[in-house]
């Protein structure tokens, strides 16, 4: 059971996602919410997206910190398909934006 408010919240600085391009090389970009994460997917160096996808960092952060196992599973599939380059950026952006839209529509007051 996904807690929508938990997934959509802004996390503490220590729990944010920090984008690296390789071991120890921090780009200066970070995301403290799913919304911010989506924006950063557009801007961050492709190498960073590939680095984190390969290391399973996106799945772990989305599942363990934000608590969204459904989105984590979708990203896991992307990793299994070994998508790289701009195709990775586009597909990751599509998956996350679709999920964000769904979550916002469910959590919005009726």
């Amino acid at each position, binding site marked *: 059971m996904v807690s929508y408010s938990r997934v959509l919240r802004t996390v503490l*600085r*220590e729990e944010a996602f*920090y984008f*690296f391009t390789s071991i*120890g*090389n*921090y*780009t*200066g970009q970070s995301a403290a919410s799913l919304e911010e994460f989506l924006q950063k997917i557009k801007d961050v160096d492709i190498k960073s997206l590939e680095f984190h996808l390969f290391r399973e960092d996106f799945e772990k952060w989305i599942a363990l910190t934000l608590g969204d196992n459904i989105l984590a599973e979708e990203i896991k599939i992307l990793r299994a398909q070994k998508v790289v380059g701009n195709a990775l950026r586009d597909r990751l952006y599509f998956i996350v934006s679709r999920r964000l839209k769904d979550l916002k529509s469910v959590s919005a007051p009726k």
Partner: protein
Amino acid sequence: MATKSKSTLGLGGMRLKGQEATLDDLDWQILRLLQENAKQTYTEIGNKLNVAHSTVYDRIQKMEEYGFIKKYEAIVDSEKMRISQITAQMTIRTDPKETESIAKKLTKFSQVLEVSTSFSEELVIIAKVVAQDQAELHSFIAKSIAPLPGVLRIRTAIVTKKYKEERFSLASRENYSKKKE
């Protein structure tokens, strides 16, 4: 080679220039020998420099007292001890307002061996870090360093082979002498 120096002002060979203590030739030679092997006895050092062991004792005491000698340490060969450890050099670009605060925070981590600031094109912090492996190194940087307020970017180079490691250079002595003149 041994040089006997004049003892002045009751400071062994050290002299007070204003409020600042300075070293003479004998002090430098003792330091060089201690750098090679800090476990040598006063007598061994005295024999090599052709001075009494009591002189060596006195000089070392004074150099410790005045902070010229900060500490004695064992240099461990981690390979021989079969300790799996990697070393990396981090260059951290920071918000200038936060540089000092970040540098101080870095000194608190046991994984960080050295911290200094440097200015070339921009002000950066340079830090030497150790970790068990690359995964641990990355985790430490991602969880403990990147989130520090004011950290703008980090570049990390993992040391693959070390060709020389000295803590102190005798070249410093020439600069020291020039400065005194």
